[in-house]
């Protein structure tokens, strides 16, 4: 059974005073995410990422299509007990303290009364908010609110976690903590579906990614599948303080940094270069086929559509 099955889910908003003008936010989206997968949903602002998440959460009704989470229709109330959701730039009841807020959410999620306080304490510990657990949320910084958001999303031990731009607005330390948390969730066997436009995060974390633009799916697959080897180049790193003279005649783009040389060579020259390094007794550090980056793939997918008509957020 798939964790998430999105079956031609579509959303058109009606805008204007009389709600007469249609505005396409999402065009017949079809996606399947397997259990235990970390899935990245990529796209620029206004691409349809948040609309997709809102549809999956039942916050907006679809115009057409449906979706299933863990085999249950998204309007089945039982689904909600199995999912966790962190909205983009979350805002919480700021009259509550973090402990009160998490307790409230634990109550709504059906966490048994006996387990509630222990579960809340464990979550506060996990996101590093024990010290400020008794402070009203109106006094929290953006990073702290994001941590509260993450805590509330996983508080009830959901099987599928949806995160909308979880790294948005965080400092490097905060981003690292979120990345670690997603990796922990993966190791616990949970399915994580997160939207982002920070490609390095997606590249580092995701088993698969999908790119969406103007409400339309542009591509989906494992990062390695989507980023084929680029122009037959190989990156070679070896120990040397300068580029050996035997290599200078080769078509090599080299950069010397301390006692290391980082060079890009054509794949067909790989054997010849290795032979030179062996002959000169130079220590090889690594040899890696150069792949097109996710960013290049992303930019390529978005480029033809730039002049097209926009979709909603």
């Amino acid at each position, binding site marked *: 059974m798939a964790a998430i099955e999105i079956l031609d889910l579509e959303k058109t*908003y009606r805008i204007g005073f009389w709600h007469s003008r249609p505005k396409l936010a999402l065009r017949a989206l079809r996606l399947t995410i397997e259990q235990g997968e970390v899935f990245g949903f990529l796209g620029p602002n206004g691409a349809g990422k948040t609309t997709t998440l*809102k549809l999956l*959460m*039942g*916050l*907006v*009704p679809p115009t057409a299509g449906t979706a299933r989470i863990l085999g249950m229709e998204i309007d089945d*109330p*039982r689904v*909600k*007990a199995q*999912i*966790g*959701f962190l*909205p983009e730039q*979350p*805002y*919480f*009841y700021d*009259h*509550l303290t973090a402990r009160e807020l998490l307790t*409230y*959410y634990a*109550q*709504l*999620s*059906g966490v048994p009364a006996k387990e509630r306080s222990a579960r809340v304490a464990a979550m506060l510990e996990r996101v590093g908010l024990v010290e400020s657990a008794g402070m009203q949320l109106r006094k929290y910084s953006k990073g702290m609110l994001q941590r509260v*958001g993450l805590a*509330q999303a996983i508080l*009830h031990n959901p099987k599928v976690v*949806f995160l909308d731009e979880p790294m948005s607005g965080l400092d490097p330390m905060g981003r690292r903590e979120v990345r670690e948390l997603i990796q922990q969730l993966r190791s616990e066997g949970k399915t994580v579906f997160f939207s982002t436009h920070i490609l390095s995060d997606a590249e580092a974390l995701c088993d698969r990614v999908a790119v969406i633009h103007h409400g339309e799916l542009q591509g989906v697959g494992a990062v390695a599948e989507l980023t084929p080897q680029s122009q037959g180049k190989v990156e070679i790193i070896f120990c040397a303080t300068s580029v050996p003279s035997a290599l200078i005649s080769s078509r090599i783009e080299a950069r010397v940094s301390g006692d290391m040389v980082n060079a890009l060579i054509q794949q067909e020259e790989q054997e010849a270069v290795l032979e030179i390094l062996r002959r000169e007794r130079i220590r090889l550090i690594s040899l890696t086929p150069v792949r097109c980056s996710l960013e290049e793939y992303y930019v390529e997918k978005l480029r033809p559509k730039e002049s097209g008509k926009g979709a909603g957020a």
Partner: protein
Amino acid sequence: MSSRIAFVAFNTFREAVRDRVLYNLIAFALLISAAAILVGEISIDVERLVVINLGLTAVSLFGVVIAIFIGIGLVSKEIDKKTLYTVLSRPVRRWEFVVGKFFGLTGTLVVNTFFMAIGVFLALLYVARHFEKADLPVLAALYFIVLEFLVVCALALFFSSFSTPIMSALFTFALFAVGSLSDELRGFARMATGLKGALMTVCAYVVPNFSAFNIINQAAHGDGVSGRLIFYNTLYALLYSTIAISGAVLIFQRRNLK
């Protein structure tokens, strides 16, 4: 009652109690009661009448203001601030959320009315030096004021389920003002004939009959209140609130949360 409704209601109550505006209104209502005492002292032989009239009117007006101004934001504020997202992505149905919000606000108003009522009775004790049997209708008047709050809360919630807070406040206040004159409205309807008469009759009966809940003058004169009136007013308030809340639920159920 579903436990989720109770949790939403308690959170709504807690939010209102932690809101400083609410504390100010209670303090202001108590101040009005103190003013009533002063008026009572300068009036001759009508201290009791003045204190009950002023006190209960203050309780009613301050409660209605709280009901309208908190009621209109119950749903719209949650949508605007997106606090609703993390609630509705849990096993909470939309109707449970709306009903929980309603109970939370009415609970707040009951507690608020309780404290204001203490103020009224203390003022009464101060001017009359003792309680008497003729003071009992004051309790009935307070009960009717709470019923009035139920209907105002339900209306505010109904309007806020599809309209902006300002428009919701306007609609609710307008209905409260017209409903407070519903006896006169029904009188006009009886006098009108033909299509105009029919339309006015429909309007007169659709508009909530707030004048039925106003027995402040009767209570001030110590006139008894019949059990029949208590029963019918209770039934009317429950029915009207249920219809308004059902309308709010129906609209909110289909609403896109942008």
